[in-house]
């Protein structure tokens, strides 16, 4: 066991630091930091995407983009450990990776596993540069946690498929050029076996994107309506009716990316607790506040060191296991608790965000984000199922959907 970089890692860290010092958009660092907890400090979303894209392109031009990808895909062929070192050094700007998280973190590994060589050469370098953003059309109004229950139909037509249905919770669909969708190609077999993964241009005829207003009042997610959208055969990933295993690859990468990268809010609550109130008293001088801070700090360390344990295992040749779900499960719940505690400390000041009140701004966002984060990318309940079944080996639930998909019970029509 040891805590230090090897000489090679230390040299790599030094080079990363030099690059960031020289090339990062330091004039925008305050804005970038305020992006934590999905805040929106930019007047216009387009400004955020433009700044993010500029930083991505600079990283790419200097050989610092998508470090773990193979070189022929636009990456650098480095190890996950070097990737983490770069992320640590990039901390102040890491939120500028937001527009590319889905494309680079979830979609690209799926393309690497299932797309043709020619398609990988066509799409991956553009994703690495940040030129092209993709979105992931998985969930539907009737299929969220029960993702294999998607009902968007793909009908066979000459040279491909026609899609008809509705997707929901699609992050970034309004600025994505391409999208990957899980659709039903056969309703006569068990539900997991009748699914196919396809991809398409988001400006294809028949696609309508509508924003979903979240509890925060902002719209990060969308509904996507697919009305007779044509997808050529060449844009099927992993084979017809093989879509479930493709989706599992995407989901595993999603949980790892989210679990390893999301801040919990410990720095924010610590800072707030150190600020004296109007009477000059600091919350941190109260024992009850100190106990909570210690508990959250302990969880935060546990999640961060858990990532390091996973990296140690990967470096020794193991593949990441379902234990990665622990980070998101614990972190999301802690964030929600921290947000409520921060708002408690702010008292009446929390009732509205006054201009320039950074603390109220931050904890409002965290309050909304904590709720959302426990649901997105696998709910708490799904995470617990994953841990119970895949790590502890406990039996699966008894279920009522084991027959052909068209016979699976659905809610009775409203009276």
């Amino acid at each position, binding site marked *: *066991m*040891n*805590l*230090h*970089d090897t000489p090679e890692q230390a040299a790599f860290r030094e080079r990363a630091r030099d690059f960031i010092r020289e090339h990062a958009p330091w004039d925008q660092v305050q804005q970038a930091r305020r992006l934590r907890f999905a805040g929106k400090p930019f007047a216009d979303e387009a400004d955020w995407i433009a700044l993010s894209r500029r930083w991505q392109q600079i990283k790419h031009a200097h050989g610092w983009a998508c470090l773990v990808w193979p070189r022929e895909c636009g990456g650098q062929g480095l190890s996950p450990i070097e990737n983490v070192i770069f992320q640590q050094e990039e901390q102040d700007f890491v939120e500028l990776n937001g527009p590319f998280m889905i494309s680079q973190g979830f979609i690209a590994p799926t393309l690497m596993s299932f797309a043709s060589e020619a398609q990988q050469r066509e799409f991956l370098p553009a994703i690495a540069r940040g030129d092209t953003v993709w979105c992931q059309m998985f969930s539907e109004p009737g299929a969220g946690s029960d993702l294999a229950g998607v009902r968007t139909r793909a009908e066979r037509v000459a040279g491909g498929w026609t899609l008809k249905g509705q997707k929901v919770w699609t992050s970034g669909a309004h600025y994505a050029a391409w999208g990957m969708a899980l659709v039903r190609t056969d309703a006569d077999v068990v539900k997991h076996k009748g699914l196919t993964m396809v991809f398409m241009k988001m400006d294809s005829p028949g696609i309508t994107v509508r924003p979903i207003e979240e509890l925060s009042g902002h719209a990060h997610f969308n509904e996507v309506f697919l009305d007779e959208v044509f997808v050529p055969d060449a844009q099927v990933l992993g084979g017809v009716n093989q879509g479930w295993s493709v989706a599992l690859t995407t989901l595993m990468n999603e949980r790892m990316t989210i679990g390893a990268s999301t801040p919990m809010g410990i720095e924010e609550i*610590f800072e707030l607790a*150190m600020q004296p109130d109007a009477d000059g008293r600091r919350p*941190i001088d109260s*024992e009850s506040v*100190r*106990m909570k*801070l*210690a*508990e959250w*700090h*302990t*969880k935060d*360390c*546990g*999640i*961060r*060191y*858990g990532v*390091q*344990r996973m*990296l*140690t*295992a990967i*470096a*020794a040749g193991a593949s990441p296991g379902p*234990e990665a779900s*622990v980070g998101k*499960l*614990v972190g999301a719940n802690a964030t929600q608790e921290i947000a409520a505690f921060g708002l408690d400390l702010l008292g009446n000041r929390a009732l509205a965000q006054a201009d320039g009140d950074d603390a109220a701004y931050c904890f409002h966002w965290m309050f909304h984000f904590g709720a959302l984060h426990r649901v997105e990318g696998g709910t708490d*309940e799904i*995470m*617990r*199922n994953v*841990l*119970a*079944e895949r*790590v*502890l*080996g*406990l*039996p*699966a*639930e*008894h279920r009522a959907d084991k027959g052909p998909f068209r016979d699976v019970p659905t809610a009775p029509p409203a009276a």
Partner: protein
Amino acid sequence: MNLAFSEEELAIRDEFRRVLTSSSARAGLVAIQAQQLSCDLPLWQRLAQTGWLGAGVAEEHGGSALGNAVLCLAAEEIGRQSPAIPYVASVCGFAVALALADAPRAQAQWLPRIADGSVLGLVLMAQDWSAPPLLSGIDSADDSCTLSGATRLLRDGASASVALTLIGEAERAALLLLPLPAGERIGAIDKTLDLLHPPAAFRFDAAPAEVLATGDAAIRLWERVLDRYALFTAFEQLGGAQAALEMARDYSLTRYAFGRAIGSFQALKHSMADMLAAIELARSNCYFGAAALDDDEAQLPEAAAVARIAATDAFRLCAKQNMQIHGGIGVTWESDAHLAYRRAQSLATALGTPGFWKERLVRLLIAHRGSAARAA
């Protein structure tokens, strides 16, 4: 950063596991309850003969000096198997503490006896004294003094015969090696919280003690002792938590109700998933602590506190949920579930309460932020 134990360290751990499985928590309870022993002495003697009591003792004092990483793994294994012996207190806690001091005479006198099992040591915190004890003047010829006072009940007190403790504050602080008189045990076994670690209290009336360090040096040494012992205890708690989860899982797979294994009910699966999550957090924090202990002592105080807090939480959660998942049988004397439940509680307050470690952590974090702000 590398947060995994080596193959070699794990192989040594596996050897230790084999020796420990020659007894059990139940056998220890019989030794204490029916045979009136202070602990599972037959197992203790086997460990002495096989050299495991010298794991934290240098070779010159008759030990095998297996290193901190192995001591961490040994403590975890003690947690898993839960034998009725004060291994972590004496072999990890006391021996490692005494070895840190600049006290060759005391080390030569006591460490060989730790390694051969004839002496069992404890580390006493301020909370363990019923009032601050009184100290005579120190005889500079042989660093001896006398001490008068009384301890509260001490976990593993029934089997201990020597202790290390810090008395006094600031320049009056003294780190003492204190031979223990016969302790006063509380009568019936069913009146003790942790059945496998019988407590005792001690009275001292001008009892002889040896001063190992004074003033700042004593306090600095004491801090290092606490961090190490806290980390070993955290590993013991981690092992206890893991064993409780495995016991719960195994039972839930064999017990049927409503025509199915109870482990297939989501209520129980989610309870066990939460146990697993708590264990994973504790394990990551413990491993980081073990790495800090060997590689970067500056990071050890925070790491040890964090490991201790997380492991206390994990063991308590797992012990009580294991009992719950066992249902009726879990709350009987016959089940081992209560042995873990009791031990999780007694370990939570041994060597500082959860509140003590949380307060210690927050002080370190505030100091850390202060120094970071000054540097910036």
